[in-house]
């Protein structure tokens, strides 16, 4: 059998496609596992996302919320909340970050920065995020050390200027 | 596509019955079923040689049974 791509078909589809994203596939653990060769730009985006996801997960557990309870109380989508915690490929919607900041009584601008949604670079938050990501595990119940790390970081994020 | 080669395959009646059953179930010709089987077998064989394992997991009992190739 021959593959055929009628010219008019290609043109019609191209016009409808309109340049919007068409990517299909998963997070891709094969090509990125233990991979030290990721560029700085990609790593920056990654680190922020991972720190944000872990932070939300830990603060949720500390407050004793289930995913559903937090989603309900903060009026955010439970699937998006779970995705944020898993640091999956999605970036959170700014509204979700605002809602989460509100419910946890944090500075929304700082939380947006942690989520990678703002231009303003704050060294304190970035260093805090890196230390947090390096010292926290995402599973199991919180150890006293984790509680301490979390609280230090919450203090940085809660300080409204 | 590349030129295809033809071969004769000797199967027992039981094997043929299974092949025909799969062929009907998957809505494929017998050749397509065998081609599919070969792809699976090769993938498993390559990964096995690389030291990976293949498991069947029972969703309800949460049991895992390792599929062993010798």
């Amino acid at each position, binding site marked *: 059998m021959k593959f055929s791509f009628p010219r008019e078909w290609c043109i*019609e*589809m191209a016009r409808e*496609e309109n340049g919007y994203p068409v*990517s299909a596939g998963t997070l891709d653990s094969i090509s990125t596992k233990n991979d030290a060769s990721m560029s700085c730009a990609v790593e920056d985006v990654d680190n922020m996302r991972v720190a944000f996801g872990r932070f939300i997960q830990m603060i949720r557990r500390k407050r004793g919320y289930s995913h559903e309870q937090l989603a309900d109380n903060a009026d955010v989508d439970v699937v998006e909340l779970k995705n944020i915690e*898993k640091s999956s490929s*999605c970036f959170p919607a700014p509204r979700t970050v605002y809602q989460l900041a509100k419910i946890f009584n944090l500075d929304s601008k700082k939380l947006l920065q942690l989520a990678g949604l703002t231009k303003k670079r704050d060294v304190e938050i970035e260093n805090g995020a890196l230390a947090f990501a390096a010292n926290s595990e995402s599973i199991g119940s919180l150890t006293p050390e984790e509680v301490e790390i979390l609280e230090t970081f919450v203090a940085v994020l809660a300080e409204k200027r | 596509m590349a030129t295809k080669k033809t071969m004769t395959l000797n199967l027992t009646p039981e094997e043929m019955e299974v092949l025909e059953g799969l062929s009907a179930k998957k809505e494929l010709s017998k050749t397509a079923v065998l081609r*599919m089987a070969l792809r699976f077998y090769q993938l498993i064989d390559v990964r096995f040689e690389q030291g990976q394992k293949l498991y069947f997991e029972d969703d309800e009992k949460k049991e895992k049974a390792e599929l062993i190739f010798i």
Partner: protein
Amino acid sequence: MTTESFPICLLHKPTDTIVDAVLQTSIEEAQLEDWRNLWVPAREEGIKRCVSTKQIECIPQSYRWKWDKKIAYYDGILAKRTFSVVCNDRTEGLMLVTTPAFALEESQKGKPLVYVDFLETAPWNINGFLGQGEYRGVGSVLLRAAVLLSLQEEYQGRIGLQSLPDAEAFYSRLQMRDLGLEHSKEGLRYFEMTPIEANAFLTRGGRYEI
């Protein structure tokens, strides 16, 4: 696997002209070189630009894919097939598929399909990432190749894929069945095309031949 090339055409958006290109039934070293030397730097540039202009949401969600690793991992595996779109000697799109995987959609359950593991267009073709995007139609052509492969394999045009969140609109518009989030651990929606939708996609409702 012998590589074949089929003529296609793309829309060059900046000049609004139709240009000839090819769909290749493989990803060769030349494509991986383009990926390394052109796609990766362009992606870096785009990410930096998005970060500096606060538009993180414009970063394509495939921003960490590494095609060289994917291709090396599946080298020589019969169940994996690769495709690429090349225009003026430059790689514009890449796709990796599995034959077979099996349908989950109720009416097709257990029947074989072509599963699109990864499909991506070059960073400069994405509207809103590096400008308005250069070539249009790359994704559609790759998807057509997946459906044609499905027909060739006797899978009746069935295909399945997990859409990245920002591409859901594209796959929904093609009338693919949205089977929701429960088939993926990563919170991605799983879409399937049944033989009926595959036929409608290829012929655009009977207006074109397959």
